């Protein structure tokens, strides 16, 4: 292993030391001379909020779940005593008031509750706020797919292409593969290689195999477009174009067949609908018609000269 491999770690360490010298600041939330009064007191005035929040998870969680922090209205909005006494909107946390304020409050609980990586996520870095996707005063957060479409319309549009995962049919959602709160590559829900996420549902492909196909071992997305494609099986291009990027045609494909419309093959009269282009069409139309184990196989191909490597059972 060469020393160049450690270069990114070295650069990062230097950056860490440099940045660490800058003191951290934390936005203050007004707490002085205040006290918690309970959600019921809030609902005396905010009756519409009571209706909306009746089944909200934030009204159902208990203090022990968030390591003793306050729950209910004041879990997010802070103590309400002064706000109630003086009817002053300035005396309570308002999430529309300041950019990034909501995230800080949410993370007070969620940094140790399921959203461990949020602060390192691309969404957080890009200032996507919690309220962008979540509706706090409803019983449930909207359909995850609808939350994503606002910023990722082209990706959602790809789901409408002829070959797609069953997202638009409701059997999957964006969050089946992506966790919008994590800091991983493409926010994928895997802690290993990208392919390991695919293996969650397609374990049959992982092998390990005796006869491998190198791009399968490299990266599924060399051949597949997971969000949707025009070509069948989520392929980035139709066969044989997809395969011809790396592979030569069979030598047979250059031969010309006969013009005869009827041929005797193996003692059987057969049609010859393709005429002289027969070899071209047979060997350049659908590679996986013969190479059906394109993801790998333990069965050797029949011919000795190929040493069984043709991925044909």
């Amino acid at each position: 292993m060469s020393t160049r491999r450690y270069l990114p770690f070295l650069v990062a360490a230097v950056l860490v030391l440099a940045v660490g010298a800058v003191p951290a600041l934390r936005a203050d939330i007004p707490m002085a001379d205040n006290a918690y009064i309970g959600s019921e007191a809030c609902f005396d005035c905010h009756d519409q909020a009571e209706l909306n929040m009746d089944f909200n998870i934030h009204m159902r969680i208990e203090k022990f779940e968030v390591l003793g922090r306050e729950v209910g209205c004041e879990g997010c909005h802070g103590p309400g005593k002064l706000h109630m006494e003086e009817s002053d909107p300035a005396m309570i946390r308002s999430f529309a008031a300041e950019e990034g304020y909501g995230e800080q409050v949410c993370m007070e609980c969620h940094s140790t509750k399921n959203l461990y990586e949020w602060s390192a996520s691309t969404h957080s870095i890009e200032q996507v706020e919690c309220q962008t996707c979540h509706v706090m005063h409803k019983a449930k957060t909207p359909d995850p797919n609808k939350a994503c479409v606002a910023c990722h319309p082209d990706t959602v549009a790809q789901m409408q292409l002829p070959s797609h995962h069953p997202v638009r049919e409701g059997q999957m959602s964006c969050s089946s593969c992506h966790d919008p709160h994590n800091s991983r590559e493409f926010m994928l829900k895997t802690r290993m290689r990208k392919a390991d996420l695919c293996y969650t549902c397609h374990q049959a492909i992982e092998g390990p195999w005796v006869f491998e196909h190198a791009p399968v071992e490299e990266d599924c997305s060399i051949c597949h477009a997971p969000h949707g494609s025009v070509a069948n099986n989520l392929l980035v291009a139709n066969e044989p174009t997809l395969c011809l990027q790396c592979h030569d045609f069979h030598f047979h494909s250059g031969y010309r067949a006969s013009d005869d419309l009827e041929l005797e093959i193996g003692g059987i009269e057969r049609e010859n609908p393709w005429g002289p282009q027969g070899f071209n069409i047979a060997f350049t139309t659908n590679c996986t018609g013969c190479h059906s184990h394109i993801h790998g196989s333990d069965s050797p191909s029949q011919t000795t000269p190929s040493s069984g490597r043709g991925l044909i059972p």
Partner: protein
Amino acid sequence: MNSKMRYLLTVLLIVLVPGALLAQESESETTTRTESEVEIGVWDTSVDGSPDLVLEYEPDGTGPIIKADIISVMEKGSVDYEGEILTSNNMTNDLGFDFNRVFRSSNLLNIMLHRLGHEPLDHFQAVTNHGRVTWETDNNPDSEYEIDYQLFETWNEIQPRGMSNLTFGFGYRDQRRDGLRQQTAVSHCDACHVESMDRPMNEKTTDIGADLTWAGEWGYVRAGYKTRDYSDSPTSIPYTYDDALHPELRTPLFDNRVQYDLQSGPQEIDFRPDTTKDTFGVDGLWASRTGWNLAAEGIWSETKSDYEDITSDYNGYLLSLNKRFGEERRWGFRWRGRAYDVSVSDFFVDTIEQVGIAGPQAGKTYREIYDFDPDFNRQSSRNRDVIDSKADVSYRFNRTLGTLRFLWDYESVDREHFQVAPGTTKTTSNELGVSWSARPAKGWKTNVLLKFGDASDPFNGVNTQYSILESSPAGSPFAPEAAQYFEFHDARVAEGTASPESWTRFQARGTYTGNTASVTANYRYWDGDNTSGDLTDWSRMNQAASVTLWSSPAPRWQWYAGYTWNDSTLDTVATVPLFDG
């Protein structure tokens, strides 16, 4: 349990659970609250032609649709169900419940039909040149290839009140694919005879996992284990190959170049070996008082094939740091580094070598006739050491001017055996980018991203393409003096790839949100090429533009419309003999 029984049970669940809850409500009206929304409708779908192309995952015909969203909160817990049922093999069900918030459970049952399509293979029909042919036989021309897909998933957590820093999670996932799919096999020599046949499937993947998390103000530590078993039944199907005959004479008078044929009897093909995958992981996050978040994890995984006793090992380690700092936390810094290695055990392939049974090569193997050794030691192309690093520095000006972010992604993939250029197994890539996201005016949101990437020796097939620039024309393999098959492989001297050595990515998005409507315009462009191949070039360009409109003129009335334009160009070299490479 068959699909009808599952359907019945699900309907019963929908009816009985709220019923039971409502019954309880009558006994203790003050502690149980239920809100439910049930929609009943009719669906109707008809298809002309091939339903697998336009209705891959949906039923066709007519039937009722039931959609329910029910939540009930009691003194000692809650139940929350959301589901949609079309048919016995098309439904989604989500059920969550908790007991005293100490035990929390989320459960999912999804069932759908997946049409696989039936490839007619008729492009193989009757190609011949002096009697040498490729032809096909569909043994089950009327079969409809489709599977029932079923996924059941449950994840449960226990967080004791007295030890709320600890959370114990455990789950089970059961995925099944039952049905019939198409399988092809090919017999060689006299002809390339492609045969299609039914392949029953009864695929089952089960995951059992558990983890333990210890969380506090300082962060968390978690350790987890998951084991996965995959099986299919039958594991393989029998197939009898044609007799290997001389292509010209259709007699056994020639060197035998197949490992097995009719004389070998039925062979087991299309192996789907049972596999077991065990994964153990430890991860944790430390949130320092100075605002640093430091996360680390280790993952160790082993996947084992039960058929050929091959094992694949993964060992990965990750370290990440991030911090917001400066006045009003305007500066942001993030770095993630990961190192992992993958190794698969070697496997010696001992090719079956038949002897010619007649003619001048009688009693000789292919190896003896052509001095060609077909045996080899398979060394896995999966084996590799990888290091990747992703670093960001961002600065937030204010709400109007937004956030400017600079990115640097680095990856080094050092493969143990697979060469991506002659004598080279390593790919190094760097990607630099800048992004700007802002809210320039009330209701407006914009985001622009520009990235440039460069890779040395990207994934590439060495000697996978034929080139008339380098290879001398080979004779007909059917003529007596012709080159042999492996010699044609030797004539492939050019590189082939579908991976870029340099690329540009640009994305721009703007959204305007009014009181009851929003409009979003988005443009995405990606352009990459690889001109470092020895004799072949490759390039690809994708771009998409979309406009979406959303409006909610009344609280329970929403509509949405979108239009997307996609453009993709692939420039690759299809070499001889069809085209001049």
